[in-house]
């Protein structure tokens, strides 16, 4: 068990973080961590040593999280961005805590789409398939979510500047 425990200790935080970013719920993220780590044991025969282990484990955890997301009622940004605001740039610099707070203010589904697109490198068609939605769903969620982040970060920066 020692080698497996080492693997667990090494990857528990990355797996938990990934699940938490996608699901926005610590209890569910904990369950994903548990299930994904057990899946490692069950499916280790499928792991090919020629690809990074983290990539393989990350895929397992992402799939587990997506299965849960699909069962949820979708919760996403529906309003269209203002044409003027859509041209607003992301603030040049911001604290990571500001970004975290801004992410927390996004509807959960939008947050998941943003994470899959920007961090996990999912393409729009993959996101659409994951949520059982159309291609335009993914595109508009990325667009609107990004726009919302810009707004929130701008507000947050201003708030902190005057605090």
């Amino acid at each position, binding site marked *: *068990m*020692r*080698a*497996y*425990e*080492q*693997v*667990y*200790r*090494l*990857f*528990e*935080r*990355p797996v*938990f*973080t*990934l699940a*938490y*970013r996608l699901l926005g719920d*610590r209890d569910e*993220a*904990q369950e994903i*961590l*548990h299930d994904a*780590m*057990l899946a*490692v*044991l069950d499916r*280790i*025969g499928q*792991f090919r*040593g020629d690809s*990074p*282990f*983290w990539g393989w484990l990350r895929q397992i955890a992402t799939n587990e999280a997506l299965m849960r997301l699909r069962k949820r009622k979708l919760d996403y940004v529906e309003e269209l961005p203002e044409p003027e605001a859509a*041209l607003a*740039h*992301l603030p040049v610099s*911001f604290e*990571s805590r500001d*970004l*975290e707070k801004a*992410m927390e203010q996004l509807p959960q589904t939008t947050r998941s789409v*943003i*994470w899959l697109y*920007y*961090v996990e490198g999912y393409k729009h068609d993959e996101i659409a398939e994951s949520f059982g939605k159309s291609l335009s769903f993914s595109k508009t969620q990325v667009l609107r979510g*990004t726009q919302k*982040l810009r707004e929130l970060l701008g507000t947050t920066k201003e708030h902190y500047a005057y605090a």
Partner: protein
Amino acid sequence: MPDDEVMRESSSLAAALAALPLEDPAPGGFARIEATLAKRRTRTRVVHGLALAASLAAIAVIPFALLSDRAPSDVENAPIAATSAPSAPTTQGALIEQNELLEAWVRAQDEPFDGATAYASAELEDLIGMLDVELAATRDVESQDALWRQRLGLLSELASVRSQGVTRLATNDAALVPAAYRID
């Protein structure tokens, strides 16, 4: 917004999101994993134990079933243990020999050093044990051949697990974790 600006902004947002600090799971996660694995092992043993009991019961019934199929006069003269094995055909002999060779090789190996390998080995050994019970109860040569082939397949898997080890994960630890998730 020009395309190159969009790209630059996207990559800066991606980098900023990926650089967010790691979250800490609740403590005791590995203990829960160990508890789940222990439950699984118990459940597997119970299932195999029930199957084993059923097979043993079948073995016990076989001599009586054989006897009851015979005419009364035959029964009187029939040996109780009418179990002299049919002369093994060459193919079965070869199968048994291969089984024995592989089994001897597996026995000569050191005990598994990691949990995943030990777990996989135990599962395969349980299955091989079940086949042995079935083999002991099987009189039909064709069925025996099939069982010996299955046994050889399982032994090959076991040999592979024991020689390569299931866990090839703990090597090159930090290099496996992309910068965005690096644990500092």
